[in-house]
């Protein structure tokens, strides 16, 4: 066991971790931040995406010990200061970008990473960026639309499905 210390959503946290503990488990079980989901556990689905030092990573495929000293951001850190939903989250709600919601945390984290890099992506760029995020429910269309809307682009012409 070693003690791992990192900043999670702006707060410094420490926890015991065996070297083999994955970042996803450190967050979910150690920190009780269960918004980060484990879908496939084989780095396919993207439900577990969090940001480490500003970059999207699959927390099921990174060791907690590798995040020592890192700045980690999870879905729990995405809302505005006053607790209201962030622009991306609100857009997912407004445009029905989720159904069961299982993939949503990962989708929002990937969307946030994309928009930080590319503030006005086109539809193709969004679909490409979401290659590693799988949704079992929505058919993706409304997720893409929500991200377009969150980036301030007009989505009125995109079919409502």
């Amino acid at each position: 066991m070693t003690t791992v210390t990192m900043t999670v959503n702006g707060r410094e946290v420490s926890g015991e971790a065996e070297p083999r503990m994955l970042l996803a488990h450190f967050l979910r079980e150690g920190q009780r931040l269960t918004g980060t989901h484990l879908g496939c556990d084989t780095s396919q689905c993207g439900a577990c995406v969090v940001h480490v030092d500003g970059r999207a990573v699959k927390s099921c495929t990174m060791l907690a010990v590798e995040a020592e000293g890192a700045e980690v951001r999870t879905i729990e850190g995405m809302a505005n200061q006053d607790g209201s939903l962030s622009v991306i989250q609100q857009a997912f709600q407004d445009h029905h970008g989720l159904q069961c919601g299982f993939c949503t945390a990962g989708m929002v984290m990937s969307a946030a990473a994309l928009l930080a890099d590319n503030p006005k992506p086109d539809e193709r760029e969004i679909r490409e960026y979401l290659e590693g995020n799988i949704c079992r429910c929505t058919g993706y269309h409304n997720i893409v639309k929500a991200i377009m809307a969150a980036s301030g682009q007009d989505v009125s012409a995109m079919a409502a499905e």
Partner: protein
Amino acid sequence: MYAFEFQKPTSIQAAVEALKDDEAQALGGGQTLLPTMRQRLASPGTLVSLSGIAEMRGVCRADDGALCIGGGTSHAVVAQEAAGIYPGLAGLAARIGDPAVRNRGTIGGSLANNDPSACYPCAVLASGARIITDRREIAADDFFEGMFTTALEQGEIITEVRFPVPEASNYQKFIQPASRFALVGVMVAKYAGGVRVAVTGASEEGVFRWTEAEKALSDNFAASALKDLTVSADGMIADMHGSAAYRAHLIKVLAGRAVEAAA
């Protein structure tokens, strides 16, 4: 995954020391190794993380014009920083896996693993790149020794890869959408001394050079130069995603596309 010890040295020297232990295994970005360990297909006693070694990260230009990429550099960084120098290589890096995988996976890790369907081995072979390790320099043509096998010795670390920059190049990846590896991938690179063509995803021996195409394209750098060539299906991978004949056919199609798209 089974329990293991973990070390995170901050210098190449210290990493080499730590890897002298027979039970130790280097950890790059972990995008292949961790899933493999989780399936219990690998169970190293110690993981030696290379992610704390700053001198192994980054992209720069050598005096001879070669593009140097630190072995610990992520695919995302290569995609971004090599774009202006070697667009064919940057384009290849930009399509490995998915964005989250590209943020963790490293060029050194990919090459050391030499997956027969991986993209980077194709770029290294097509470029005639040189692999720099903690102890020597290995030419691309001597590095790949068949599926998941390389010239690396036990504990040897890829610290840097040097790519001669071609006049024109392109990588065409026919993606296998479930794994996001190449079903077949072909890289074409045109140098003053001739054209090199490398193929991944197709052969049971791993990445290889298509020398007939190299000859034809060196005489005439046009897709039409390939029209009379055929690739034999012998020794090609056959699986549920594509037969050997299908892969052999794809090689020619993709090589042609790569020539047309080369920039």
